[in-house]
């Protein structure tokens, strides 16, 4: 695609940004459905199957229902739009209002640097190496970590401004949890950066041409995955939601679409972290025949994200929740030392390989 002037490039980025955001928001809607369906199947239930199905008449006169429940996300959204939006009198008005917005912003921001596909003719402007909204940021990995660290604010603000005991407990627990696991995540992400010699996500993907970093560095991949689950507050780290003790934690005072925004941010971040895991360890958009047909990159990214989401849901169905002291000591005494030691081992290994002591 020929793009010559800066303003054309700006319009292009804007359009791509909107499209990708809408794709991910649609993905969010269907991730909620996937989660409910898959959880139900894992627990021998049926899951939502009423809202929308394709009736197929069979010979016995009874009709078969295909794709039961595929309109469930739309029904949920409509319900949220028509719910009463209440604001408790005791809240701190401004911060209470801002918290859902501040929660969504980081989720949208990370989308900007994720490479969704390689250089695809006709839709990637010339001069860019891969398809992303703003690929020219040379500190992509650091940018992602920085934006992730900002997402703590949504939780802190929501918890504090609600002026409810459950909310503030959930909020402060969640923020301490997020910063603890952010350390392990930051030190683990150093490993792909070191292997690819770049902080550019596209270069990291291209660096996995021969072999996925998952196989080169299984420990780093595992630590990253666990830290991502903790960042997302997914099970088994969903202490801030802990329905039985905190009654949904920092979102307890939020209703209707404001709650919906927290929900949206959480699921968008699930998709984003699956995409990041794919980029760092699963070869991103790379797969068979992607060099011949670059558009396949979108398919591979989507497949890897889908796989990651299924694993997340599977983990939620399988593992019980941590206790808070266990959670903190696991983060600081297990994950952090492992990631520090792993970083040093990788550093030494790379030197040994380069010096020819170890042959690969």
């Amino acid at each position, binding site marked *: 695609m020929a793009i010559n002037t800066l303003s054309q490039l700006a319009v292009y980025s804007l359009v791509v940004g909107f499209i990708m955001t809408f794709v991910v928001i649609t993905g969010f809607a269907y991730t909620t459905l996937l989660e409910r369906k898959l959880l139900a199947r894992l627990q021998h239930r049926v899951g939502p199957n009423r809202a929308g199905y394709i009736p197929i008449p069979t010979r016995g006169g009874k009709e078969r229902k295909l794709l039961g429940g595929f309109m469930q996300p739309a029904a949920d959204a409509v319900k949220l*739009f028509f719910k009463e939006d209440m604001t408790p009198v*005791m809240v701190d008005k401004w911060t209470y209002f801002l918290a*859902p917005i501040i929660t969504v912003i980081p989720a949208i921001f990370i989308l900007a640097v994720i490479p969704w596909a390689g250089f695809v003719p006709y839709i990637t402007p010339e001069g860019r190496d891969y398809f992303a909204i703003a690929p*020219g940021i040379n500190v992509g990995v650091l940018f992602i970590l920085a934006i992730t660290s900002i997402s703590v604010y949504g939780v802190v603000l929501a918890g504090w401004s609600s*002026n409810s005991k459950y909310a503030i407990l959930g909020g402060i627990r969640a923020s301490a949890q997020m910063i603890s696991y952010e350390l392990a995540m930051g030190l683990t992400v150093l490993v792909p950066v*070191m292997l690819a010699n*770049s902080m550019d996500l596209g270069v990291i993907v291209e660096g996995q041409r021969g072999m996925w970093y998952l196989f080169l560095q299984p420990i780093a991949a595992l630590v990253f995955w666990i830290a991502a689950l903790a960042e997302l507050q997914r099970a088994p780290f969903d202490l801030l939601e802990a329905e039985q003790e905190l009654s949904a934690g920092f979102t307890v005072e939020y209703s209707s679409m404001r709650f919906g925004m927290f929900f949206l941010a959480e699921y968008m971040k699930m998709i984003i972290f699956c995409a990041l895991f794919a980029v760092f360890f699963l070869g991103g958009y790379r797969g068979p025949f992607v060099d011949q047909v670059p558009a396949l990159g979108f398919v591979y990214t989507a497949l890897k994200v889908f796989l990651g989401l299924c694993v997340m849901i599977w983990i939620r169905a399988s593992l019980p929740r941590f206790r808070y002291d266990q959670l903190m000591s696991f983060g600081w005494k297990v994950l952090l030392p492992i990631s520090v030691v792993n970083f040093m081992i990788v550093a030494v290994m790379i*030197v040994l390989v380069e010096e020819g002591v170890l042959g690969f």
Partner: protein
Amino acid sequence: MEGTPVQNDWYFILLFVVLSPILAAVPMLINYLLGPRKPNFIKQQTYECGVETVGDAWVQFKVQYYIYALVFVIFDIEAVFLFPVAAAYGQLPLFAIGAAVLFILLLADGLAYAWGRGVLEWV
């Protein structure tokens, strides 16, 4: 303003600074327009297990959260220092790699000290 591509892409991210709050606020606005509004005294109370709400929730928290945040700040700075080194890793001489490993060993020392002092025990 024909800057370098790096700068341009940062400007596109600045566009997102303006657009993403709008994207987040629009559903809430639609909800505000569509949803019913019938506030009453009981409904607007803070949730507290169905009993009357006692006081506000802005109370004192334990010091441990603060210490964790302190240790976090130190390690965060360390990670930021290590990122450019990791990005340059392929072209570094042996001496430089020794310096990087020394850097992280010094901080591992700090973690060991905090661990030994029992800071990492969550009581």
